């Protein structure tokens, strides 16, 4: 009947419905907020990941360059060392030859001395001819070994310089590598951020990435 109050049960039902609707609205709002948060988080993770991935790519290139430079310097030092060692071996061989000449020369001299003869004695012309030949060859050996020594000197200097030249690129490569590792770890944290939707993981990843970038930049400037 009009004007008749609804029954008690219907009123309760309406209230329940209203509560239900309100709850649904609240839940929808919360869902919306979470989705917005996740969306925002994803966006930030994406931006951070893009920046860090790009940096990682550049760092990889420059690390490889520095590593190659250090490797080339070490290879040059090693090559100089090897050539030097070969030349020293050649020098030793020449010295052994020279020693045999010296023995031959000394034998003739001792023989002449034992016979009480001088170089200008006509009876020992052949001995003196041989003696002079030996003396000249010994002198030639001296000149030759001196040239070998100068070459070895250059090679040893080169080895020394190249060894030092390898130090700076090695230090750079080490820093780039460390920076690269830190950035990789940061990217892993950012990936976990998407799965867990935890903001602190985003900031941890960004902080770690920033440290990685700083370490990499020090690979260039070598300030520390």
């Amino acid at each position, binding site marked *: 009947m009009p004007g008749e109050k609804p029954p008690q049960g219907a009123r309760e039902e309406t209230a329940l419905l209203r509560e239900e609707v309100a709850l649904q609205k609240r839940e929808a709002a919360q869902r919306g907020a979470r989705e917005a948060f996740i969306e925002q988080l994803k966006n*930030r993770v994406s*931006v*951070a990941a893009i*920046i*860090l991935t*790009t*940096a990682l790519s*550049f*760092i990889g*290139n*420059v690390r490889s*360059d*520095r590593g190659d*430079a250090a490797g080339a310097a070490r290879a040059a030092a090693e090559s100089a060392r090897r050539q030097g060692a070969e030349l*020293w071996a050649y*020098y030793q061989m020449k*010295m052994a030859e020279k020693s045999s000449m010296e023995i031959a020369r000394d034998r003739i001299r001792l023989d002449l001395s034992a016979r009480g003869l001088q170089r200008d004695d006509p009876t020992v012309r052949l001995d003196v001819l041989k003696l002079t030949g030996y003396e000249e060859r*010994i*002198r030639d050996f*001296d000149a030759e*070994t*001196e040239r070998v*020594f*100068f070459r070895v*000197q250059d090679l*040893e*200097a080169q*080895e*020394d*310089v190249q*060894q*030092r030249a390898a130090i*700076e690129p090695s230090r*750079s490569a080490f820093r780039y590598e460390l920076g690269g590792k830190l950035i990789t770890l940061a990217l892993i944290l950012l990936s976990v951020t998407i799965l867990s939707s935890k903001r602190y993981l985003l900031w941890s990843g*960004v902080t770690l990435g920033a440290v990685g*970038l700083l370490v*990499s*930049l020090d690979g*260039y*400037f*070598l300030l520390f």
Partner: protein
Amino acid sequence: MRRILQKFLVDGLVVLGIAVNVGLLLINLRPERPHLGRRAKARILLRASDPRIQWMRANEFNEFAIARDVDFEFVSAPTFEDVHQKLIEEKQLPTGLLLADVDDEHAQELKDGGLVRPIADGADPAELRDTVSDFIREAAARGTLDGKQWYLPKRALVNVAVYLRPAIEDAYLHWEEDRKAIDAALKEANGAGLPKDFRLRRTPDRWDSFDLFVAAWSWAHHPARWAEASRRIAADNAVAPQTAPRVAWPCGDSEDGSGQLLNDLYRHGLREEQLGQLDAPPLLDALQWQALFRKHGLLPEQCEKSGLEQRNVNGLFHERKLAWAPIDQADSVWLHGGARRDAEAGIPGPGDLSWATLPQGVSAELAAGGQPARRGRSFAFEEVHLWAVPVRSPDPKLAFQIARFLSQRGFQQRETEAEGMLPVREDLRQDYPIAFRLVWMQSLLDASFRQLERGTADLPAGWAGDDWDDKYLKLRQAVVYGRPKDAPVTLAAIREAVRRASATAAAEATHDAR
């Protein structure tokens, strides 16, 4: 408000990230370390000749200059006395001297005069420990004063004997031809002649004063085929073998002459506390031998006149006019000439050169058994050169870094080979037969290190400071060169000459005081 701040933070980080990436892109284009700093200027004071400075610039300093953006300017000083003077001037009017090359003889004086500051001031303690541990302990100790590292060792020098092998062979084979004459000359001086059973020893490494006298006599009295007339110089035999004195050492009143005299005194057994004792046997023995050499014409004529400095002695050897002389490592390398490609030509026939320790000083006077009454030792003063930081040095840290850089093994090895010195690094001292494989260089280093083992010491503190150098030079001049050449050279005559000379000097001093 918070949102705005957050937005700025996020946007800022994004912009920064992009900027870093742009930076990394640019680094990729040119990955070498940038030279961002201002170029520093470093003035280095070196006691070295111009060619040596040029060599050091090209082979040592340039690498540091490129790596550390430093422009080096070198100030050359001919002697350590000049270095001292320049450091005094630097203290009064600083010109930006960063680092200086000094010797151990002046180390204490420079510290006491406030002319230098400890090199340790510019070094990190761990770095300093690491650097010092590379040096030979004795060399590092020369740079330590009152327990603090004031200096870093740079290089060392010690006198050894250089000789021509053919000359030694000649003396060994023929000296007995002169035995009677030598015996007579010595008998006049010591009343006995040569020691009992004397034989000239085969190697100068074992010589004593008698061996040197005998060899010098033999060389000075016979034409020398192995000297300037050697076929190494005159292939056409145009130069006839000449008879001339073939032994020389610095004489006269120069700094070299005083150093040589002090060496002689110590070889005859003088000790620091005997400085000034004019009746000390080592002094009389040393002067008696010098008088003997002079009396019998065994030394070059220049000793009678203006004297010989070390460079003059080296010059005579370079012309192959000498058979035996004292010499240090730097001069040895110059004399040989085969140390590096662009080196000045050395002595003709450098293969004939060899090196030995200095002869043991013994008295000419013989004991009852016919052997020398007094024995000294083989001796030479070791000179250690040090890196010092002037008191007004503009950058002590950079100064230490330069000194440390230059002390690396490679540099020490190359400088030893190319310019001549005794390395001050422990590893090179241990490995020198491996590191220096040229036969002549090994002979030189062998003799040098053996000399350090046989006899060396610090210069006595009062030698130059208390003017003993001048006093002893005057005494030598009066006793050896101030008397007629044929004056007696017995120990008694020498003692009397010393007494007279010292009395004259005392009278002059009294007169001057009035």
